């Protein structure tokens, strides 16, 4: 069997159920830290981190646990951003409905993309998702409701359930935090569910899983749709936070960015994508003041990252501690 070491190189240390207690501790610590973060840090920045962290986690579900690298995840993120923006601004949906609608749109899109792409593997899967996403980008560029390169601006944040006024950054922050934690826990649960167990088996040895009677394509498709939906949840929330949905959200560089986040944090680690998202978003934010040195410094950081922490920050950390994180 010409087993190209593709998934093996990404292969995460798959934790067995009993070695997970420390992960709950880290999770609790993380929730606490996030809850107190707005005391120290600018809430809008934090919200950006959270939205991208959720996006990266959703992406990681696919690459880390199914071994599929999607290069078109911006399609789900951006579609949701447009859907939420349009629903909130033009149709006057309340925020919770707008985001729910956005998530649904992305899930539906995930079903279509997944159905087309799921039978391809490795780089071909990546490329077909990229191609589909580029076609969608073109559609959004031309479609009147997206506002072309101006995007949908001034999206109202509205009132959550008619009561909570989201135009207050802090209130918005709590909502985003809740959305993020919800999404994160769902992903965590998925990984450690009977379904997740089958996913791992498929990633390890697909023909064997088939011979045991598993319809592997359906499992992959469900994972893909889940990932798309959660990316959509992140994108829709982001649109409300920044009151903006634009072509940036659907451009291939966005798909690239989420790959970066997952890589920098550590592929197939539970907390890696969160750390990766925090790092990349901070870079963008705090390096902006470096002016024309931004891209150079960013580039150097990527190079250093690959050379120094192959497993990503969290991956290396987990290795040092001898525990999967």
């Amino acid at each position, binding site marked *: 069997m010409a087993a190209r070491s593709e998934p093996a190189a990404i292969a995460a240390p798959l934790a067995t159920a009993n070695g997970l207690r420390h992960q709950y501790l880290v999770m609790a610590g993380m929730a606490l830290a996030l809850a107190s973060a707005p005391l120290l840090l600018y809430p809008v920045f934090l919200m950006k981190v959270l939205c991208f962290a959720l996006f990266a986690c959703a992406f990681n579900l696919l690459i880390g646990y199914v071994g599929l690298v999607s290069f078109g995840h911006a399609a789900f993120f951006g579609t949701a951003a447009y859907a939420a923006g349009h629903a909130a601004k033009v149709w006057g949906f309340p925020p919770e409905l707008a985001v729910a609608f956005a998530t649904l749109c992305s899930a539906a899109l995930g079903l279509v993309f997944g159905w087309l792409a799921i039978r391809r593997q490795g780089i*071909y899967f990546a490329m077909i998702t990229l191609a589909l996403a580029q076609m969608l980008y*073109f559609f959004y560029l031309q479609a009147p409701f997206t506002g072309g390169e101006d995007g949908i601006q001034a999206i109202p944040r509205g009132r959550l359930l008619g009561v909570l006024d989201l135009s207050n950054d802090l209130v918005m922050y709590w909502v985003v935090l809740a959305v993020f934690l919800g999404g994160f826990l769902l992903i965590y649960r998925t990984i450690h569910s009977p379904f997740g167990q089958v996913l791992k088996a498929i990633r390890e040895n697909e023909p064997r899983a088939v011979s045991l009677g598993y319809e592997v394509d359906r499992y992959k498709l469900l994972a893909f749709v889940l990932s798309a939906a959660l990316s959509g949840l992140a994108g829709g929330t982001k649109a409300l936070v920044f009151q903006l949905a634009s072509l940036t959200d659907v451009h291939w560089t966005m798909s690239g960015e989420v790959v970066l986040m997952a890589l920098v944090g550590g592929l197939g680690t539970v907390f890696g994508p969160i750390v990766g998202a925090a790092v990349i978003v901070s870079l963008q934010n705090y390096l902006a003041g470096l002016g024309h040195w931004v891209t150079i410094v*960013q580039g150097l950081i990527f190079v250093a990252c*690959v050379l120094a922490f192959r497993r990503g920050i969290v991956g290396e950390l987990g290795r040092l501690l001898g525990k999967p994180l």
Partner: protein
Amino acid sequence: MTELLGIPAPVLFGQLLLGLINGAFYAILSLGLAVIFGLLNIINFTHGAQYMMGAFTAWMLLNWAGLGYWWALLLAPLFVGLTGILIERFLLKRLAGLDHLYGLLLTFGLALVIQGLYRNEFGSTGLPYAIPAELRGGQNLGFMFLPNYRAWVVVVSLAVCLATWLVIEKTRLGSYLRAATENPTLVQAMGIDVPRMVTLTYGFGVALAAFAGVLAAPIYQVSPLMGADLIIVVFAVVVIGGMGSILGSILTGFGLGVIEGLTKVFWPEASSTVIFVIMAIVLLLRPAGLFGRTG
């Protein structure tokens, strides 16, 4: 006058020819990318930056050393290829055996650095580079005016592609390259210096990019970002052709140039997307690309 789908036939011929010319750039660039991917299993995201370096090297040779186009055609690939060899030796080598994503991230980071440095030095607008005196002017073909320089581009890139193809497919070297892609250890255990072969191959792929850059300098603006967006399209070409297929990347390069050219007539807005549409269709019908081997 004969018309086809509302377009006068002569105009159509002209567009086909132009498509072929653009295809020549795709072909050379994707060839380099395919060679590198084939052997190093690395998606060389620096390729666009290296193409740009080729163009800038030509500019520097002219303005700083007084060496003209023909020298540049020879020297720029050499210089840029050498920098490629350094990159392979000191950076890429450390990624052996890892997933392509790591190589992608590394080369992407490098591209950012290189483009940033050039921009800081030369500005973002770019610099002029004149068409060499020997190739100015053009031929009136009746249906269109064909600049001599463009004709030269097609001819020389066809020649370079063909030569590369012959060397890789028709000599033992080709088998070594393909085998080393799959199992470098075993090939080395057969007595072939795989590390050096890898280094040289990367250098060669990079030199091809630089060569395309020199060819491009007189027609496109010599600017730091000239290769930044190209890479993704060129990569699509490689995938459509079938990863690792040399012939595939050449033929697809020319073919897609033509298709893109036609799109510019019939639905100009979509001309930058058509490649991805084709990629999606091809991959759905032929999972390993047009000329790829299913494995």
